[in-house]
């Protein structure tokens, strides 16, 4: 969960503008887990709960 280096970010910007990567790919690669751990933890809990009740 490190910040994405500037060069990589700029390349991601370019690839997204060119339509070579999707918004989802851009989001995932830009974030690289940054600010996202709490959301993912809650999502994991929900997934477990659903699996348990299914």
């Amino acid at each position, binding site marked *: 969960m490190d*910040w*994405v280096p*500037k060069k990589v*970010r*700029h390349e991601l*910007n370019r690839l*997204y*503008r060119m*339509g070579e990567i999707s*918004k989802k790919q*851009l*989001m995932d690669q*830009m*974030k*690289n887990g*940054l*600010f*996202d751990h709490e*959301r993912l933890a*809650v*999502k994991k809990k*929900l997934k477990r709960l*659903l699996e348990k009740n299914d």
Partner: protein
Amino acid sequence: MDISEIIRFFERLESSGGWFYDFLSYFIAIGLVLVFIIYLIRLWRGEINWLGQRAEEINETDSPQRDELENQVTKLIQENELLIKQINKKDRMIQKLTKEVKEVKQLYMELDERYEDETYTMSQIVYTAEEVATAIVNEEDFVKNKDDIYDNLLDYLINTIRGYREKSPRIVIHIPHFTKEGVLMHYAHSSGYSHRIKEYEPEIFGSAVGHAWRNNEVYYIPDVEEAGIEFDRNRQAKKKFRSLLCVPLSAGQDFSTCIGVLSLTGEPVNAYEKIERERVVLFSKLLYPLIYFDLVRKGVSANGLGSQESKT
């Protein structure tokens, strides 16, 4: 008359050799056969049981047990109906709960998607803040690569817009003209515009950019083709757009701190949701220090730029 006398009477009849004895024997035999046939017929019909008891008699005998059994059966039927009703009720409840769980799951998915969008926006904010700081610290590099730096900074803002392909968002930053009066001039723009965008100088009166500049307030036009809006219809743009958002670059409400206007176009009508407009305002605040730094560096006073005089 006892039994012995009856026996003696029949012995006399037999010894006398008369016809009456034979007749009596046949009569009794035929009578017994007929009784047996009648018994079989009635047994077959169910009118009697094998002991010869009549059905009515049997019913009369079993009546209390039968009543009790009938009561039990009636009770069981009633209980069964009640149970079926309860099961149906539970079924309906389960169906309702299943539907609600499904709705909650959908809401969660929607909330999660938006939460993800927000965390992603946070990353774009961090990168913008970092690159603004880097540009201020490395003045030489900033001067040399100003266009590229703004290209990427504005890309971070555009990255937070939903539906990039449909909306084709493009950004231009205008500042007051250094030499001409009554117009603003190009300062920076995002990718997607041709260099001719630099030639566009919006009027302070009669353009959406000018409106935001004069009033130091966010000016959102959901449809530029609507009548009665302040908008420069001769605006040069490579692509057609229907939505326009103009955000003054200022520090708070003070007019004197306003150093320019950031405008964002969108192809469809009412392209930008409230959250997106709020993000544009947020990014305008992030970019402010760098633009301010650049203008001060060039020797243009921020007070001069945003003064009341420059707005009239």
